[in-house]
């Protein structure tokens, strides 16, 4: 049976699928939490009812998402032990620490205060209640930091030593782990991308109602707010992405080369950015491409005349370093096929789709802000475009992670452990079974989630009225399961 089901392959598919699925909910939670906190602050400070209505509307979307983020998050954590037990043994010392810190410092806070926020409208004073959404939002962001620090350690190990007796990685410097340059780059990049995702959901909701002439007063606020947040988010992704690319060139030059499908080391004009490339089927050389000279050199090094190492040179260097006679622990670091090259078409296209989809979302904002200036009327087809822009940042985030993680291959921990050595010594049948069950359950839940979110968005803001003293009867705001 074990010949039929390849534990490694199935475990990798399972990790990819469950992680991408988890990441459908996480960015919307992070982004929407922040946007809702801002809306509620506007309500508390101005007393304008439209802000409260929008807080309730987008708060509901936030809530639907949040529960899915929690339950799929448990799978993420358990999976390291279930499918990747050798990896967990090897890195528990370092990788476990940020996960545990995330739980103790951020996740507890998040899960507690989100409950207080949802169910506490009629039990807390407006200011304390406002504080609960801010604490929820800030802790989702803090959560992301710890998780990204753990991930950054896999991309660029820091603050560790290898124990010569056990061959396990051990922590030497937690500060180096949490200030890993990859984490410092990934963190803002992930957060601003999450804001874009939430912002386009807001834009789409507003556009859908505008197209039907519903709730114009509230929806105009939501539309402009979403358009601006999306644009600011995009500028943030460009700035942080640029920073991240330079860190990556130093820490994982192979990933940079794979992002560009750059087979040979090049500098200056030759280190060009290709918009389109066809390679030979064996992936060793290219047949045709459309290129912008200097751009890759500049992206990777910040210098138009910089040098970017090519895939073939890196492969030779790594082969010596990690498989050769001087390799410290070839058992862990040398892939069985002696190849250190990620799947080039995946990294190359994922990198381009990430940038392209993100830029497209930003374009929606630029045009949207222009055509809706000063209450101008908008052609109906434009509303449809705005509605369909909602998934753009989501797909950009997903392919961004596909790029980051596939570009790390064949490493599980760069330079220390290959993916194939990290898998659990368990029957492939078990993994096959869990892969099938997770796919089925996740698929069904995705359909329900999508329906619930679109239904909540289409239902629009609740009917609320101000009382004579300018407040709102809190009992009309309560949520009940």
């Amino acid at each position, binding site marked *: 049976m074990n010949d039929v089901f390849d534990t490694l392959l199935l475990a990798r598919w399972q990790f990819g699928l469950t992680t991408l699925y988890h990441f459908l909910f996480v960015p919307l939670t992070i982004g929407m939490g922040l946007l809702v906190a801002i809306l509620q602050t506007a309500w508390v400070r101005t007393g304008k009812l439209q802000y409260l209505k929008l807080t309730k509307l987008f708060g509901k979307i936030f809530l639907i998402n949040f529960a899915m983020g*929690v339950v799929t998050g448990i799978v993420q*954590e358990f999976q390291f032990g279930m499918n990747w037990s050798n990896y967990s043994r090897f890195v528990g*010392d370092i990788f476990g620490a940020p996960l545990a810190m995330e739980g103790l410092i951020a996740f507890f806070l998040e899960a507690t205060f989100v*409950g207080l926020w949802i169910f506490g409208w009629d*039990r807390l004073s407006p200011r304390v209640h406002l504080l609960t959404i801010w604490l929820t939002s800030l802790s989702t962001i803090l959560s992301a930091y710890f998780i990204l620090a753990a991930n950054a350690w896999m991309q660029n190990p820091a603050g560790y030593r290898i124990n010569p007796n056990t061959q396990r990685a051990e922590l030497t410097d937690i500060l180096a782990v949490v200030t890993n340059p990859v984490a410092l780059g990934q963190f803002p990049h992930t957060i601003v991308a999450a804001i874009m995702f939430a912002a386009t959901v807001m834009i789409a909701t507003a556009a859908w109602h505008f197209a039907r002439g519903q709730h114009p007063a509230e929806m105009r606020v939501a539309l402009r707010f979403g358009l601006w947040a999306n644009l600011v988010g995009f500028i943030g992704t460009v700035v942080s992405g640029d920073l991240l690319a330079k860190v990556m060139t130093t820490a994982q030059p192979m990933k940079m080369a794979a992002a560009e499908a750059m087979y040979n080391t090049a500098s200056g004009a030759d280190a060009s950015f290709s918009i389109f490339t066809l390679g030979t089927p064996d992936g060793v050389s290219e047949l045709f491409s459309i290129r912008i000279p200097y751009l890759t050199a500049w992206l990777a090094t910040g210098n138009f005349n910089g040098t970017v190492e090519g895939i073939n040179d890196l492969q030779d260097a790594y082969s010596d370093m990690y498989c050769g006679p001087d390799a410290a622990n070839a*058992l862990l670091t040398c892939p069985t096929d002696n190849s250190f090259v990620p799947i080039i078409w995946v990294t190359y296209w994922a990198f381009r789709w990430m940038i392209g989809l993100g830029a497209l979302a930003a374009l929606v904002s630029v045009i949207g802000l222009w055509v809706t200036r000063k209450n101008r009327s908008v052609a109906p087809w434009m509303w449809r475009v705005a509605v369909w822009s909602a998934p753009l940042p989501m797909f950009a985030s997903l392919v961004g992670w596909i790029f980051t993680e596939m570009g790390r291959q064949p490493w599980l921990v760069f330079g220390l452990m290959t993916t194939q050595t990290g898998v659990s010594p368990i029957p492939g049948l078990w993994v096959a079974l869990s892969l099938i069950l997770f796919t089925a359950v996740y698929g069904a839940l995705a359909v329900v989630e999508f329906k619930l979110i679109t239904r909540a968005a289409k239902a629009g803001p609740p009917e609320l009225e101000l009382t004579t003293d300018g407040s709102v009867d809190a009992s009309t705001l309560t949520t*009940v399961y």
Partner: protein
Amino acid sequence: MDTLQFVWFLIVGALLIGYFVLDGFDFGVGMALPFVGRDDVDRRVIINTIGPVWDLNETWLIVAGACLFASFPEWYATMFSGFYLALLLILLALILRGVSFEYRHQGTHERWTAWFDTFIVFGSALPALLWGVAFGNLIQGIPMAQPETGGWAYTGNFFDLLTVYPLLAGMTTLALFFSYGLTYLALKSTGDVRERSRALGIKIGLVTLVLAAAFIVWTVLANMGAQALWLVLVFGALAAVSLILSLLSTVRGRDGFAFVWHLVTVIAAVGFIYFTLFPNLIVNSTVGGENLTIFNGSSSEATLTLMTWVAVFMIPLVLAYQAWTFWVFRKRVGREHIPGHAVSLSRTKAA
């Protein structure tokens, strides 16, 4: 270093207690759904007693799991890969249960609601049973190989985990969490739901008492050589006494005492299992095999020291703000809190 390892044995134990004390009553409340709720309004009352806190409670599992990973990576790696299918079932159960609270009233048909109610019941009962089975196996021992590259690897299959003793442990935790949830429900609800919770609580409580007695006696007799035998006996006795006191309180209509005594039972149960294990984390049933213990399965000193500081600062803070949350939502839930039930039972959402 020995001290740190022992401290972390206790901290992970405390987090597990946190998880079972909190999510434990969620399990019981979920299982009670079809027995205590006669109509949809009742069932919504039942769900709303844990509405604001269930995801907070489940968070303790994630935190306990992460801390277990950070402090005893060998335990985490061996247990999670070894108990693979059991954990898979627990994960699926927790996922379905969690989303069902939110989904059940989103549909337009009664069939829809009924499906998600079924998920809530099984999604609560399955983990309540399987956690007991898992801990029973840790005590009884599982076959493990020790590869040359280090560590341990489970060598049995799924059905090797389902022997009599672990199943008894599972039945005990199933009954324990069921009756625990009923004391919570009696404390947090009004009217018929409260009355029915009490009545059923006494019946299930008696079943729990019988199962727990059998489990405690078997465990003690089979582990007379336990290093911390006196603690095992103390926790075993405490579990039995507090369970009886909880039952008596229910009979006398003292909901608060019944719940608190039952909470003590859950704490004592974890302590009982935990110190039966000590200093082992997983007993190796392979002949000549080495047990996985707190001394050979832990992280390095640097990690344990760092995490001790984090835990010492954070856990009291967490307890404080979570206690405040329970205080904010201290009121009982009744049928009058369910909006619109007089108008329509099947569809309460404004579309």
